[in-house]
């Protein structure tokens, strides 16, 4: 029954992804499944939220989802396109070679290690979920609490926005609570398995999206390495089992970055990929308030890179397609913010002291120090993963031709981090407390995207194992 409840979102998401993304193959299949599951959960969450004030019955929700699925399937047949050509691995200097036995052996070892890591992560997640099936603090104080209000509060569901429970952040967007409540409605009872499955599926989506996209863009070894770095980060499983919304947000951020990279690297350019990236960006804003900051950063980074590379005319078109995807979800978000949500505590807490905070060097020092110390020890590895990644990059170097999309992705991540820093500087809460309780999660939101940008930039080891294809990397 639980599987059946997750089937409509998967079908909706997969059909839309398949409509926009025509590439075929195993890697593309994994990519589409990963994107489709997250996208479907996001869309079903929005549909449930829109239906909640009108008719929150099971039949109404099921019918709406079915209509949506039929529309998506119709669009799939109407907009049939030839397979998208993307100038990927085959043209890269680090492309997979023909018959290098060293390459094959290393890739085989990496693939075995990847499967082992995936099983290890699943076991870790299952044990952690058994120990705390309701998740950690934010799960029961914010996300699952809201889901209970939406599901249990027949006519009083708007109590979820009451100022009485202001410490549960009534202004936070509702992707996660709305989807959980919708699935409980399908099952006709509340069960802890739903929130556990949602968390697990988003985490699995991140792994699939990261590994498959790097495999398609670079090669299998590089893809496995990216996946291995993610799966070897204990904090990834900890935060997934905690059922925090940072995992879905990290998924949507990564989806935007990956889809924009695909769109920009396809020779003819793909409008539908920009629209899909826009939809994913919209769902990021529907997951957490930080998603809005990221979307602004993405738009700004693309405009800046287009202006710098003198491709403004093309860039403007791309931005407009991205906006077409994001606009409907932003409208729903505006409706939610204006009609239901109270003022955000970080915004409402601003007063004249904000100027003092902005001019206080000690606050800047605290924030920078917090980011540096947390970044170097991020992920709860035995040692520092940052050192391992730096050594790896120094050893293998980067590509001689930096790609436009990579520059824009790094810029988007950097702007988002700057935005987070600014929020810390003007926070009305105690700064040390605020940093200590949230910086890990903020870094995690961008961590999969950072790994994607990193493995897109660093030369693959396979390049050095193919003497006949060598070309000097830019940095060694």
């Amino acid at each position, binding site marked *: 029954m639980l599987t059946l409840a997750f089937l409509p979102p998967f079908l909706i998401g997969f059909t839309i992804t398949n409509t926009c993304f025509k590439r075929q193959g195993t890697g593309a299949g994994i990519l589409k499944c990963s994107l489709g599951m997250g996208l479907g959960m996001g869309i079903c969450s929005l549909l449930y939220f829109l239906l909640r004030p009108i008719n929150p019955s099971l039949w109404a929700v099921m019918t709406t989802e079915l209509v949506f699925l039929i529309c998506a399937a119709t669009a799939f047949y109407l907009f049939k396109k030839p397979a998208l050509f993307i100038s990927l691995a085959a043209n890269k200097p680090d492309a997979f070679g023909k018959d290098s036995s060293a390459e094959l052996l290393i890739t085989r070892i990496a693939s075995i290690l990847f499967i082992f890591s995936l099983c290890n992560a699943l076991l870790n997640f299952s044990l952690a979920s058994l120990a705390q099936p309701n998740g950690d603090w934010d799960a029961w104080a914010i996300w699952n609490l809201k889901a209970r209000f939406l599901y249990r*509060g027949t006519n009083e569901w708007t109590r979820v926005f009451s100022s009485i429970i202001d*410490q549960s952040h009534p202004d936070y967007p509702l992707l996660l609570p709305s989807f959980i409540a919708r699935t409980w409605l399908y099952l006709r009872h509340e069960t802890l398995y739903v929130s556990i499955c949602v968390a697990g599926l988003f985490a699995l989506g991140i792994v699939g999206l990261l590994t498959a996209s790097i495999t398609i863009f670079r090669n299998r070894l590089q893809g496995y390495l990216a996946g291995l770095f993610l799966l070897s980060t204990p904090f990834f499983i900890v935060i997934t089992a905690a059922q925090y919304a940072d995992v879905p947000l990290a998924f949507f951020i990564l989806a935007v970055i990956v889809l924009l990279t695909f769109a920009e690297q396809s020779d003819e350019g793909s409008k539908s990929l920009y629209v899909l990236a826009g939809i994913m960006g919209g769902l990021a804003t529907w997951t957490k308030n930080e998603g809005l900051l990221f979307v602004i950063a993405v738009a700004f980074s693309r405009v800046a890179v287009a202006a710098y590379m003198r491709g403004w005319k093309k860039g403007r078109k791309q931005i407009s397609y991205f906006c077409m995807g994001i606009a409907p979800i932003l409208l729903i978000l505006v409706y939610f913010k204006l009609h239901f949500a109270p003022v955000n505590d970080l915004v409402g807490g601003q007063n004249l002291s904000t100027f003092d905070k902005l001019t206080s060097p000690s606050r800047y020092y605290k924030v920078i120090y917090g980011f540096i110390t947390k970044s170097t020890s991020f992920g709860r590895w035995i040692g520092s993963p940052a050192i391992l990644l730096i050594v790896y990059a120094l050893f*293998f170097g980067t590509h001689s031709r930096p790609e436009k999309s990579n520059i824009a992705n790094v810029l988007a991540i950097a702007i988002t981090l700057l935005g987070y820093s600014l929020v810390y500087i003007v926070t009305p809460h105690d700064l040390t407390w605020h940093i200590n309780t949230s910086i890990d999660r903020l870094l995690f939101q961008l961590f999969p995207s950072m790994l994607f940008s990193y493995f897109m930039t660093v030369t693959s080891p396979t390049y050095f194992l193919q003497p006949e294809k060598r070309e000097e990397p830019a940095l060694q």
Partner: protein
Amino acid sequence: MQPTSGRKPQLFIYLILSCIALQQLYILNSNRIAFLNKSTLPFGQSDSVAVYEKKLVNAVSLLPPKSKIGYIQDSGLSVMQGHIFLSQYAMAPRLLQEKSLSDTVLANFPISGTIEHPNNPLYTERKNWLVLKDFKNGFFLIRRK
């Protein structure tokens, strides 16, 4: 570092894979510890949330879903342990208001045990309050006289 010779990059990538394998063994060991410490209670009944839900099951059945009641707890209970959040989670969609107490209040007194205890936060005004229901687990439903 310049990975120009054939074997150097090969050795280096093996080193990287070894580091990852070591990290995986570390995760596997944490899995082993988690498995050994696994609760014997049925699924969903071992964490603090389940404890609160069990304690408040009678209070939930007593109060209508539309109700908005006050919440007070022993001053010895740490705010960092999130007792109000756990109670709110169990009581949803009933609203618990902590700041200004309404007439009916859900009292969480696991330390003082009774309103008559000198360490109880309502001790000074105990004559103004009537115990409606003692749930015998530290929770009380009290009402202003």
